[in-house]
């Protein structure tokens, strides 16, 4: 299986290559990708240099243009696709049907991947993207179990890529307006969920209280580290009881089910986290490289332990890959 790794900065790109990534995926420094955070992503020049570095090592680079083009501002997204084609990236990762249509017509030789943000969750939807736009690979939404994936892969004429590690949405991706409802900024068109510009922390009665757009997302006692207030990972009250109603602050980790994913026909594993630093990239990419190369053996336990350290709040889940998640 191909190991597809995040690079939020040129330094992270070099680290990912060094740690054994087969492929890095990146975004331009604007709202055309779903990790549009301050200080992150690539200028056109940085991308050209990054691509040269990737080429020197015989690896690949994918560019995510995976937000939805805002009506009236489509030129920003068209430019991203045109520049990707001119730079010669190995694939662009798209989700907007208008943009897929644009890319397929303007750049027929550009390889297209379907972003998780398109949430194509079954064979009919995936086949549509292939037949209509020539999409060659689908990043599967995190709503499918491993048996679902095993049933799906023989039915579709494209490769499948699945998330292997990192942050995960409990909602179908690209179909969630929760952050938009609180902040007025749509992750789908601005590229940032629960944006830092709307986050605040305060000390109240000995607890740290995290807020998004003024609404309490969680409280932490003094001895507990305060997590980032991603809306769907907060503690809320429903039916009179406080709980992590949507999802615990936890990371997806598939280290234990790699053989099952391989057997299900998965072509590529994706590590989430373009917003994470070089230490995370080095550690997670390295561990997955060793797991994929070595499979069983002594290295395995150490790698599994290292991945647990990198998980959000040191908590991990196999998420929707297991039916009991639902």
């Amino acid at each position: 299986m191909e190991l597809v790794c995040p690079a939020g900065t040129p330094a992270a790109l070099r680290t990912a290559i060094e740690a054994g990534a087969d492929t890095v995926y990146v975004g331009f420094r604007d709202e055309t990708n779903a990790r549009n955070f301050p200080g992150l992503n690539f200028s056109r020049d940085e991308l050209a240099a990054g691509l040269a570095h990737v080429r020197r090592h015989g690896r690949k680079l994918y560019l995510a243009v995976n937000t939805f083009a805002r009506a009236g501002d489509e030129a920003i997204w068209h430019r991203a696709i045109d520049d990707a084609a001119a730079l010669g990236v190995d694939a662009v990762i798209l989700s907007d049907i208008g943009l897929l249509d644009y890319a397929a017509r303007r750049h027929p030789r550009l390889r297209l991947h379907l972003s998780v943000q398109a949430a194509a969750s079954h064979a009919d939807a995936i086949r549509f993207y292939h037949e209509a736009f020539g999409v060659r690979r689908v990043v599967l939404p995190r709503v499918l179990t491993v048996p679902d994936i095993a049933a799906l892969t023989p039915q579709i004429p494209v490769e499948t890529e699945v998330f292997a590690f990192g942050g995960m949405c409990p909602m179908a991706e690209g179909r969630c307006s929760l952050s938009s409802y609180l902040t007025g900024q749509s992750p789908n068109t601005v590229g940032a969920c629960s944006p830092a510009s709307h986050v605040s922390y305060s000390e109240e009665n000995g607890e740290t209280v995290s807020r998004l757009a003024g609404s309490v997302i969680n409280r932490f006692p003094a001895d507990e580290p305060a997590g980032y207030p991603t809306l769907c990972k907060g503690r809320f009250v429903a039916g009179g009881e406080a709980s992590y109603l949507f999802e615990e602050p936890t990371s997806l980790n598939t280290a234990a089910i790699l053989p099952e994913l391989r057997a299900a026909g998965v072509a590529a594993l994706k590590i989430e986290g373009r917003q994470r630093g070089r230490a995370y990239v080095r550690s997670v990419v390295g561990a997955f490289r060793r797991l994929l190369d070595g499979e069983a053996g002594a290295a395995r336990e150490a790698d599994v332990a290292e991945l647990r350290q990198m998980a959000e709040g040191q908590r991990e889940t196999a998420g929707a890959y297991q039916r009991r998640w639902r």
Partner: protein
Amino acid sequence: MTARLSLGPVFFHWDAATLRDFYFRIADEAPFDIVHVGEVVCSKRAPFFAPHLGEVIERLKSAGKTVVLSSLALVTSERERREARELAAQEELLVEGNDVGILAALEGKPHVVGPFVNVYNAATLGYFARRGAIRACLPAELPARSIAPIAKEALAELEVIAWGRLPLAISARCFHARAHRLHKDGCQFVCARDPEGMVVRTLEGEPFLAVNGLQTLSYTWCNLVCELGTLRGFGVGVFRLVPMRADMVAVAETFRATLDGRIAGAEAMARLEKLAPEAVFANGFVHGRDGRAFVEAALGTYE
């Protein structure tokens, strides 16, 4: 032609007899031009209403309503995929596709693109229009500054949600079951206990969302009765009301009277406040703000 009114699909798990009687009354009394039926949130609920679907459709058609069958928003299982294909294959009624897979199956015949499909720009709408879409209900979060340029291209008729709790997210996980420490597979249909969704509060007690099985909705109720004229000016042809437990006949009459110019926005707002005294109204999304905001100022015209 003046704008038309549509009744969206019922998002909540109302018991079958209540739902049947609701549609009978809509057929007999409410000034809707278009009525959507069908389960869009959870396929496990659909069998309960199936025995009544035929008689409800007949009653609505006899009353002169255009009946549209709305499809499931999130398709994951083989059974759901088969049911979506069957829905697309039937020839009797117009289908609203809420998933890209069923839209593919609807190619070549007139159909509607539902609000769960990401239409954020004219190019996307144009693509579907070339394949047979005659109308699209835009996603709830689209601001007027996006609606106006999409409408300007006039590629297919546009519909905008103007009333009720807004659909914000859909998941493979059932949050209703989870809140009751149950699993989706053994959910005991606890979602039926909350006919307008289960209110979700912050740890400070601030209500801000509503959970409906796999779906998460706004706590606030969308109310665009004061924006109808401006949106109509953009070219929006249909306004959709999300069914809530308020008197939907009276709500529809209020929107109809406003669209016809028989009552002013202030009068309409006063009537709607009386019809839904518990509701907190919001119009933030269309104003380009957070969805829960209520903006008093008139909507910009985005010329």
